[in-house]
């Protein structure tokens, strides 16, 4: 297998070059155009169009008795265009809901195509092997000619998408605004649909009817997790598509029995799941960690604040026993132990036997936290008219989220107060922290 892998990458075999080029071009172009469909909330349109291509393919073959790629693809483009018109008509002018419109067009068009295919099988010219290739995706059968056509169309898609990127963004993001400033919204809709149809049609040879949906959609869905910037999303989706193309071509070279399309889909879905879990900010792991980190910080800050309070009015760094702390905090002794040790490791606490106290740095931090807490409590009682005992729990949940700017705004709005609603002093802003 390693042998074959090297052989693949030596690119001596012209066939390898064609398949690789085809898969990469397709993955890139479909990934890019897919982002626009995804953001138009038409994620599954690629699925419907891929199926709608079939009757065009079959009709072109029956009418012209040729397997010339350009002719067949032209047929596919025509029937895809009809499909998209039918979907738009049903959605805009009838009671049929968008999901049903897709499913109806998808299945009825496909049925027409399937019927024609059985008819073609019985024709005297009968050799429909070439058409099957279009249906199920067989990259190994790609020829130089196929790739040339594929390359031209893919390049066209990428160039148009790049040139009109800003227009597409406006039309998708805010149609009303686009129309108000006099943009030909319908023309851009039409252009986007056309690009999508082209991507679907060239993709059929590689990915096949069913899996074309993934080649269009999944890179966009994966890329969405990594960024909020459309430009970056488009580039990432294209890149993911290219990677999927390379994997698909690679696998079907190493194991010729293996179809290219499904492996492209496996690769792109793997990228999707990695993105879902691991993407910074929007990924599941990042979100989970953010929550866990906050919970940890809340526990730490509450313990610091408790120690600060215990020392208030006397020795600010007095020693306190674990049980004393537990009286103020609803934590299990084990959890408290963990928090204390972590605070010690951070240099905020010192301990001797079973007793703990704030370090110099710990005192600073505890003071800042207490200040925020009491400011927030005061804000809630003054502005929201809650009774002091109602306020306490709430201040506790939220104070950890206040930013320095919010804290300053609070102090300002409250007129730099000196005591909280329970009559406790609000520590002054730490001069060293700047304020």
């Amino acid at each position, binding site marked *: 297998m390693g042998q074959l892998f090297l052989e693949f990458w030596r690119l001596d075999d012209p066939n390898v070059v064609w398949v690789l080029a085809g898969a990469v071009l397709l993955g890139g172009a479909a990934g890019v155009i897919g982002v626009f469909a995804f953001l138009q909330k038409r994620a599954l349109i690629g699925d419907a169009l891929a199926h709608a291509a079939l009757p065009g393919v079959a009709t072109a073959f029956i009418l012209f008795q040729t397997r010339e790629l350009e002719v067949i693809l032209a047929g596919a483009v025509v029937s895809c265009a009809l499909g998209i018109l039918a979907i738009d008509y049903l959605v805009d002018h009838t009671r049929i809901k968008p999901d049903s419109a897709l499913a109806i067009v998808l299945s009825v068009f496909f049925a027409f195509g399937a019927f024609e295919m059985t008819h073609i099988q019985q024709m005297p010219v009968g050799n429909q092997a070439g058409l099957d290739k279009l249906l199920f995706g067989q990259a190994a059968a790609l020829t130089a000619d196929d790739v040339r056509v594929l390359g031209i169309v893919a390049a066209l898609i990428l160039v148009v998408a790049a040139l009109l990127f800003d227009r597409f963004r406006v039309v998708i993001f805010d149609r009303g605004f686009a129309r108000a400033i006099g943009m030909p919204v319908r023309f851009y809709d039409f252009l986007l649909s056309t690009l999508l149809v082209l991507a679907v049609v060239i993709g059929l040879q590689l990915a096949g009817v069913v899996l074309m949906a993934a080649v269009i959609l999944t890179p966009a*869905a994966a890329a969405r997790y990594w960024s909020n910037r459309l430009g970056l999303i488009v580039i990432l989706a294209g890149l993911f598509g290219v990677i999927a193309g390379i994997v698909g071509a690679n696998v079907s070279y190493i194991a010729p029995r293996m179809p290219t399309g499904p492996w492209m889909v496996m690769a792109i879905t793997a990228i999707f799941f990695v993105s879902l879990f691991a993407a910074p900010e929007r990924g599941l792991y990042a979100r989970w960690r953010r929550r866990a980190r906050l919970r940890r910080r809340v526990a730490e800050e509450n313990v610091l604040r408790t120690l600060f309070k215990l020392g208030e009015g006397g020795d600010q760094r007095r020693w306190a026993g674990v049980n004393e702390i537990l009286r103020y905090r609803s934590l299990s002794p084990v959890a408290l132990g963990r928090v204390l040790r972590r605070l010690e490791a951070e240099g905020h606490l010192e301990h001797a036997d079973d007793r703990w106290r704030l370090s110099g740095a710990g005192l600073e931090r505890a003071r800042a936290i207490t200040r925020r807490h009491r400011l927030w409590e005061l804000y809630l009682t003054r502005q929201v008219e809650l009774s002091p005992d109602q306020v306490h729990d709430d201040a506790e949940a939220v104070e950890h989220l206040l930013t320095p700017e919010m804290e300053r705004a609070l102090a300002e709005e409250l007129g730099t107060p000196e005591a909280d609603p329970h009559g406790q002093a609000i520590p002054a802003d730490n001069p060293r922290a700047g304020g």
Partner: protein
Amino acid sequence: MYWMDAIWIIAIASLVGISGAIVGAFLVLRRMSMLGDAISHSVLFGIVAAFLLTSSRSVPVMLIGAGLVGLLTAWLTDFLHRRGQLQEDASIGVVFTWLFALGVILIAAFAGQVDLDQECVLYGEIAFAPFDTWVVGGQDIGPRAFWILLGVTALNFLMLAVGHRPLKTVAFSPAFAASIGISVTFWHYLLMSMVSLTTVASFDAVGAILVVAMIVVPANTAFMVSKSLKGMLVGAMGVAVASAVLGYFLAAWLNGSIAAAVAMVAGGFFVVTLLFVGRDSVLARARQRRRQRQQAATPAA
């Protein structure tokens, strides 16, 4: 006996249509048609996996495999939508293409052992269904596909008999259904299970895409003109059976795929209804527009 085969084929196609109409009506009303499409594809993985795990092509194994994968599809879609914050349709697309690709790869990897290929999954060949008969106690009781579909159709009717009220309420207004104590989750997953079973039972006979046609096309045809859920269900079943009969003869006449012809006829019913039937048809609305124009044109008395 040629006519005997014809009757079996029409009966099988009708059962596909009736089952499809029942689950389809609720899918359409809940705006989940594409979830039906998704499940009809992903059950391929269920069938292959069940076969590879148990080396059995027995009916219960197949149905259980398909049922589980159908539920998995629905659950994963929901997970991506809720936890992954992905659009609902995108979640559907990601999940079903992945499971379908897995199925196809498994078939390719175990090509010698699995008696399935992509083509038969997509197209199916109902014309061969009468030859795959079931022999019980030495007695040939007719095509296997017929009996499986009969069972699934009976299950669908059972679901309808027991659950038409909660299913209707959930489809109409999930919030209201929950407010009177109906479990939206339970009925959702029950419906998804029935979609999977319907799909897998129809698989051999008509293929994945044509199951989708029988799930969405008759139900939507009836939806355009129905005033009640009962009317919609009956109408959808009627369209489905009529499509089965006419489709068979169309295929016989033009010598093409029967399953595809059935779906085409269903599509024909849809288009005709859209154009000509009922108050909301294209024709009725065009007439109304013309009348309004005329009224506007004649000066007021």
